């Protein structure tokens, strides 16, 4: 996937001078794509949080517009948003684990064994994803959900190309291990 969102140099100059009009131009163009991006990474489970992350990303851009050139504004924003999603995953990982364990106990207590095989696999994938370290999860979701090229992910996350390839590969390996532990059938 390639981004077609570009800005004039005047917009970048305006951002550097803390000009609200320049920020408004960026917000107008970027709010939609950025919101879709964050909501998808969060599996549409918390749209309010996604909107907060988008807003915080714009605030971060306004406070420190450390962008080299105008054509990097969009990737800079996506990077800020991706980092904020990663922060959220890290913060929530322990809490989510506890909630999930409680949920599993309740499910077992209620005897919820009438779920379809497909639903069980989906739950197992979601749980495994939440256990996957954020540094692997984000590159994996970017290739699987957004179909980004490795080079784009490297630019987005500020990583080397080789590092991105390694992270995606390890993410897949770890996911399969986690799913096998949850008795999802793999060969």
């Amino acid at each position, binding site marked *: 996937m390639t981004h077609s969102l570009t800005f004039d140099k005047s917009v970048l100059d305006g951002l550097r001078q803390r000009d609200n009009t320049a920020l408004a131009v960026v917000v107008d163009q970027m709010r939609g794509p950025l919101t879709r991006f964050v*909501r*998808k990474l969060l*599996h*549409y*489970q918390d*749209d309010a949080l996604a909107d907060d992350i988008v807003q915080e990303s714009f605030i971060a851009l306004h406070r420190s517009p450390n962008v080299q050139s105008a054509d990097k504004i969009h990737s800079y924003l996506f990077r800020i948003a991706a980092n904020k999603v990663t922060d959220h995953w890290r913060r929530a990982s322990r809490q989510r684990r506890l909630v999930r364990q409680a949920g599993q106990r309740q499910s077992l207590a209620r005897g919820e064994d009438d779920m379809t095989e*497909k639903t069980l*696999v*989906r739950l197992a*994938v*979601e749980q495994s*994803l939440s256990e996957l370290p954020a540094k692997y999860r984000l590159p*994996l*979701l970017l*290739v*699987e*959900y957004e179909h980004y*090229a*490795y080079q784009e992910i490297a630019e987005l996350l500020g990583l080397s190309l080789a590092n991105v*390839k*390694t992270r*995606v*590969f390890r993410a*897949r*390996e770890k*996911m*399969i291990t986690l*799913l096998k532990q949850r008795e*999802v059938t*793999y*060969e």
Partner: protein
Amino acid sequence: MNKPCAYYRRLISRRIDGDLSPEENGHLQRHLSLCASCRRAQANYRQLSENLQNVLTAAQENSTTSRKTAVLPRRRSRTVRRPLALAAAAMVLVIGGLWLSRFLPPNNARPNTTASRPSAKNLDTSAWTTYRYYRQKKAPSDDYDESLLAAFRTYQDFTAPADANR
């Protein structure tokens, strides 16, 4: 040159993402024809991709469904909403009119003349209220007005010592 399976598994991962050169693709294909373990790994990676897409699709569907159920039942049909809106507008007009009518002058009130109007500082509240009442209802002339004011000043003088003792 023989390379370990770990090398080819990285290639499998990259092939799923469309990142292999034709040359690397050829190497991998030859290895897969010989290695059952790597063929299984390739099948697993593909299944994982499919599973992840299913999760995303289900999340999108749940999101759309929850929005529909959250919003749609609260909306009434247009045929029901229009009469309700008209009734509400009529109610607002009636209540607003009643409230505004409190501020309208009585029918027989004279327009206020500010020349002889006393300052509120000079009269206590009850005297001022009474003065306004007589001014609006009964004052036939400015002379009468002046005499009324004088009467109230007297009334004030009369009540002042009692107020001071309270």
